[in-house]
């Protein structure tokens, strides 16, 4: 496990920051470090953080940057092996046996007695349990990519505990046992991202096999860079103001704090409305883009004038600076 043969050229943390930056994902050094370590140690990364901070996006961007195929598996309650790993094409098997019924007669017609017929059949090998009847699902697909791949196991916390246990073999050894065929081992271990919204605690065994990356809400500076990369048309002053506003919102006691995706949506909305300044009325009308709960909107509304004033000041001053 010491040497890893992936498609990634000599990696440095700066290289990762730059590379992800090129595909529009602005990341902190912590995130880049995580990818660096994961790549060198061939370990999966468990990415946690509140909804909308860019967990899934990280995997997508990494795949885009490295030019690797992205294989995505969305987890849900009741997800099992046959949906995640492989499945026999049962219908096809059934159909073939029906069609081949007559052919069987021809093949076995020559034989004398049952024993002979059995011998003859053995000669054909595992006809119906071979590659042709195997339906590969995301995990198997990822292992079979010769040039390596990025495997995204999304919202692992939504899956059942049994499924988590089942993942262990894949995550630690990058191999899967299929009883009828044998063990499939990855030629190039895929770069694996697991994301979790912390719906439930993940098991210790799984955590131990993964590196852990927690993506917090970004600070003002990083967030401005992100907005600049994702919504490049927005004017710099407005950008600074809207980020300052969102940052202040996050200090409020809200049910769901706005995260990066909300900030980006809001920036796009403001752009669409041709806004050139944060007017209180405008903010009031578009607040539902940022806040997803009625109570939150109600809680913020009285302070709206104050918040907009402050963020406009912050925008004029320079980078938003507040503790």
């Amino acid at each position, binding site marked *: 496990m010491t040497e890893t043969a992936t498609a990634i050229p000599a990696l440095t943390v700066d290289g990762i920051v730059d590379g992800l930056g090129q595909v529009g994902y602005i990341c902190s050094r*912590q995130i880049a470090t*995580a990818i660096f370590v994961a790549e060198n140690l061939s370990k999966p990364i468990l990415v*946690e953080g509140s909804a909308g901070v860019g967990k899934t996006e990280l995997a997508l961007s990494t795949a885009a940057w490295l030019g690797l195929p992205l294989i995505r598996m969305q987890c849900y309650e009741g997800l099992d092996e046959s949906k995640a790993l492989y499945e026999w094409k*049962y219908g096809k098997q059934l159909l073939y046996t029906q069609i081949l019924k007559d052919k069987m007669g021809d093949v076995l017609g020559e034989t004398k007695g049952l024993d002979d017929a059995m011998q003859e059949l053995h000669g054909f090998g595992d006809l119906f349990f071979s590659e042709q009847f195997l339906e590969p699902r995301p995990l198997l697909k990822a292992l079979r990519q010769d040039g390596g791949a990025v495997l995204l196991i999304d919202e692992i916390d939504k899956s*059942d505990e049994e499924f988590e246990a089942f993942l262990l073999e894949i995550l630690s050894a990058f191999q899967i046992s299929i009883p009828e065929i044998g063990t499939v081992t990855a030629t190039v271990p895929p770069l694996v991202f697991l994301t979790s919204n912390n719906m439930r605690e993940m098991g210790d065994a799984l955590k*131990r096999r993964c590196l852990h990356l927690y993506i917090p809400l970004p600070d003002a500076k990083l967030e401005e860079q992100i907005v600049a990369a994702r919504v490049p048309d927005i004017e710099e002053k407005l950008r600074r103001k809207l980020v300052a506003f969102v940052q202040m919102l996050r200090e409020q006691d809200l049910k769901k704090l706005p995260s990066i995706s909300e900030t980006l949506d809001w920036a796009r909305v403001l752009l669409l409305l041709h806004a050139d300044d944060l007017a209180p009325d405008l903010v009031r009308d578009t607040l539902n883009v940022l806040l997803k709960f009625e109570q939150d909107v109600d809680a913020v509304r009285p302070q709206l004038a104050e918040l907009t004033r402050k963020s406009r000041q912050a925008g004029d001053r320079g980078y938003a600076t507040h503790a």
Partner: protein
Amino acid sequence: MQRTLENFFRALRAAEIRVSPAESIDAHRTVELVGYGDRQFLKDSLCVALAKTPEEVASFDDCFEMFFQRQEFEAPDDGAGGDGDLPEGDDDAAADLSDLPLAEMVMSGDGAGLAAEMEQAANRVGAAEIRFFTQRGYFARRILDEMGLRDLERLIAELRRGDDESDAALGQRLEQGRRYLLEESRQYVERQYELYARANGENLRDEFLMETRLSNLEQRDFDRMHRIVRRMAKRLATRYSRRRKHSKRGQLDIRRTLRRNMPHDGIPFDVVWKYTKIERPRIVVICDVSRSVAAAARFLLLFLYSLNEVVERLQAYAFSDRLIDVGDILEHKDVDEAIPEIMVKIGFRPTDYGQALDDYEEGFMDELDRHTTVIILGDGRSNFTDPRIDIMRRLHDRSRSVIWLNPEPESFWGTGDSEMPRYRPFCHVAKTCSTVVHLERVIDDILKSYARA
């Protein structure tokens, strides 16, 4: 460096970050990869490899800062001045001290040497084994003894006794050095304590609180208690609030398979497997907050509050002589507001179980069905009023199970105005529940019974 890393793991473990052998191998490989050159880089990479939850990331940060700050002590200390300062080097005086390495190092101002020496001495006396706050003085002294402080002290005393002025001056300087050493070793042990033992003390406190009877808990433990109870409630909730469908692998549901494959002439293209449904728990909690349980009531409410945070379908009621629905208060207020508000509304009054049950039947009995578990938290002391056993019977008949948790020990049941023996036949479970540990065990059992069904 191997040693350093191992010690760092120990410190992490003390800070409640689990470092298994597998993880320590990962960490070693990470360090190999990253090196010790770039501190921030090292910290980030180790953090990724070792800390597995957001809380652990926070403790990791603290622990890393504290642990690797220790290395800076190796630089000679030319700090703030005063008694703690190492005296200036003086070569000719140092000559006759050659048989006493400690004195020599003190005189030559060799801070790095002293620090290394202290590190080794600390290893020999096992300073990292420190457990309790009160052991700090002991370890500081042991470390210095191990470094040969006694010889140094003897030398200082000798020098001072003599008449020679230069000897006295030397003694004076050595004395300064001695104080510096005392100060340093005290700080060193302090850091060891912070690193290896403090979390331990915190845990002891937590464990103690979990075993303390609810009625004996003090107001100042309230915050800590809230944390413990919430953690427990969350643990229970994650274990039981999921999985409503559970497939029985390998059991064919023949009826549904046949029906679904009618279009294929009965050839089973689509097979359907059997599964069992698991219900989500539905719980009604009725909590006594009257005068007789006043001491425990706050904590029972605290428990109710935490449970409400994590269990989706919870109905909560509180009563003394009358019963009210407190679901809204628990839902929308902070814990610091909610509990006093309930206590003001309904608490501290004389108990009347009969009236409370009557109120419940009047207002809320409809919500009970065979999926609901009713939990009653209370001492069953009803001030000799009519206990309304008839309502209790109906409660029992309508619900899936009735569980009575009583803060009093069982030997008290039935004494004085306690109606427990009369209520008891209508409870599926009636238990003493006077500590948080009890509480957790009982709730765990309840929730488990749902998973099995």
